[in-house]
């Protein structure tokens, strides 16, 4: 059974082919009234092409939303990796500071 999107695609495609056929039929028309009738018909088909196109776009956008969650998850992983490196820097700074304090304490102890 075709999905909703596939059915919508088939419909839009059929309308596109219909519009093309109507447009091609204008090649042989020399009667103005006949041409106007074809143009009005094209206007109706064109309206439905836009309508099915809009519905198809909305259905595809919904599918898109489900897939985007994966990217959001990846961004969180990358941000965690950035935080890891920043934490490493903070850790190295803390040890340096700690060693400095130890040295100060030793120097102070020597004066006692």
């Amino acid at each position, binding site marked *: 059974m075709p999905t909703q999107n596939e059915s*919508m*695609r*088939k419909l*839009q*495609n059929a*309308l*596109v082919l219909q*519009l*093309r056929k*109507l*447009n091609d039929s*204008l090649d042989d*028309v020399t*009667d*103005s009234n006949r*041409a*106007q009738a*074809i*143009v009005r018909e*094209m*206007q109706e*088909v*064109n*309206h439905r*092409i*836009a*309508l099915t*196109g*809009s519905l198809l*776009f*909305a259905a*595809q*956008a*919904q*599918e*898109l*939303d489900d*897939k*985007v969650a*994966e*990217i*959001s998850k*990846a*961004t969180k*992983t*990358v*941000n965690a*990796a*950035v935080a890891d*490196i*920043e934490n*490493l*820097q903070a850790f*190295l*700074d803390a*040890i*340096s500071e700690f*060693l*400095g304090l130890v*040295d100060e304490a030793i120097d102070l102890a020597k004066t006692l």
Partner: protein
Amino acid sequence: MLIKLAGREAVLTRTLWLALAALVCGCATTTQKSVTDWHDAVVAVREQSATTFRGVNDLVREAQLKRAADLANLKEDDFHPGLDAKSIATWNRALDNLAAYGASLSALLSPGLASGVGDSTKQLGASIATSSKSTVFQQQPGLSSALGKLGAKLASLSAAQSAQSVMAQTNSAITEVLDQMARMINDDSSGMETGILQTVHADWTSRAADVRAAFLDAKTPADKRDLAAQYAALLEKRDAADAALLGLRGALLELAVAHSRAAAGGSMDTSALIASIREQTAFFKGLLQDLKPAKT
């Protein structure tokens, strides 16, 4: 004892230089610049699609107003938006997520992040030497800087490996999202032609058909010439609109290809893409200007 310590320091120094040399010669990975270019290309595509979608909606609305002249009554469906606001918001959200992902990768690969670790490593080395009363940094002035470079290189390699691993894991999702977006613009699979491009192409064809019908009523050669010029201009606009939409589709696919290349350890270069996106956006900007009602 002192000789033993001095010997140990010499071995340590040699090892440090060798490690640094080995790391510096390490294989090339994705650079921050190429990731930043990719992020910028995503942002440019967002701008491009915003302009394009506004143009599509204005075109559809114009066609609806023209059709309304032949209607007996008005229904909501007669004025259905070409592309609805909710779906456009979803589209934008997808691009925002891709841009945020690119920005995070760029931050991870930032030389500043690695050099911060390098500076801290250098500082720690100096602190350890002071605490242990070692004179190794006085004897070898370059050692402190080498230690810093080693720390920075290790941090940079770790960042590059994390970036590579995330890109490899995320690649199929990124490709799927960008492929789906490209299909929303134009999908010519399974022997069918669907998408926004078809809506826009049909609209221009209908406009041109109007002129073809009017041509049959033209009385003078001058009238015929004017209508022929209008017809040719509409066909040109239709081709330009097709090209702009295919350009947007191409940009989305190019972003996917660049990401796949980087995920496989290659270059993510998309710098040329941004210039081409800006060029394609110009058509719909011009169209929006044309569709604005004249000031009275």
